[in-house]
């Protein structure tokens, strides 16, 4: 077991403590989001407000990335686990397995697939245009610059 200088703990237990402390920091941002949401009545979930707050703090360097890095990676890695309880909610709606319920579920699935395919195809097309436009612009600037140099 390797020990850190001055700490009677292993690296592993330090890592656990660090992850827990960092999750607490993320919780602070979440509750700041709850508070702002309640005060301003924004039609946004607290978590998204918290995300924006944390992002701003990271950009302005008010918070070092190292302070949240491990906790954030941990929570993102386990995100699927947190979606299980709302998923289980399906057992309160046995009528989803009736005819109209199945049609409802099938429509949601088909519509989602439709959105995935149209959006990704159109985006791929727009993305190429945006990139080409930028390259053209950069090339234009370069041509302009080289003309300048030659004169």
């Amino acid at each position, binding site marked *: 077991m390797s020990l850190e200088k001055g700490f009677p703990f292993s690296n592993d237990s330090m890592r656990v403590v660090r992850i827990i402390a960092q999750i607490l920091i993320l919780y602070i941002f979440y509750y700041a989001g709850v508070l702002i949401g309640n005060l301003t009545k924004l039609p946004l979930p607290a978590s998204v407000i918290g995300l924006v707050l944390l992002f701003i703090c990271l950009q302005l360097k008010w918070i070092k990335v190292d302070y949240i890095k491990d906790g954030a990676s941990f929570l993102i890695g386990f995100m699927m686990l*947190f979606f299980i309880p709302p998923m289980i909610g399906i057992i309160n709606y046995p009528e989803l397995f009736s005819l109209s319920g199945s049609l409802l579920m099938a429509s949601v699935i088909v519509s989602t697939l439709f959105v995935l395919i149209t959006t990704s195809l159109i985006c791929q097309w727009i*993305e190429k245009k*945006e990139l080409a436009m930028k390259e053209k612009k950069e090339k234009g600037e370069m041509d302009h610059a080289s003309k300048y140099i030659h004169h």
Partner: protein
Amino acid sequence: MQASISIISTVIIFLLMVKLHKRFPYQFFMPILTSSIIIIAGLLLLNIPYEVYMEGGRYLQHLLGPAVVALAYPLYNQWEMVLKYKYTILSGILIAMVSGLISIYTLLVIFKLDKELILTALPKSITTPVAMQVSETIGGIPPLTAVLVMIAGFTGALLGSVVFSIGKIESSISRGIAMGSASHGVGTSKLVDYSELDLSIGSLSLGLSAVIGAILCPIFAYIFM
């Protein structure tokens, strides 16, 4: 006591299913799917109501809050790329939102479903907490909306990679936008399999579509219903 039983058993089942998925990496062994099926079967067999399960389950669900906040980290890492493709991202999210609203509305009208069910299904592509709020505002059934939101998320998480390989979608930007705006957090967390850029564009898109959806859904409902 009951609460800790449902937390511990959910976590253990989930970890076992993650192991199973590593051993057999097929789409249909996706941990959230297999774990949910096992837990639902268990609750039905033991005659445990959802409310009792949720005494513990809600603590796990509560961690979704800080988990969504945590998505600021990949977003921060990839911010330069986001700025580079801002027009693609914005127009992509609008296209996703509009095509989602029109397609679900058309399908449900063809199937002659009730007005209340149509209103319940409209916010399906937005992240759960916002979708429930929107559903309530426009006159749907919020808890049923939450279930439909999960189905939309699942569709993306489960079939997204198939759609992307059929459509030959090789760009992280396009995958992120499509997944984040069609399948919110559930689909986005599956983007870990691709790259950090996929994940950050996905989290940006799920946040932006929550904002855009919260505005567009009520307008759409007002015009069409």
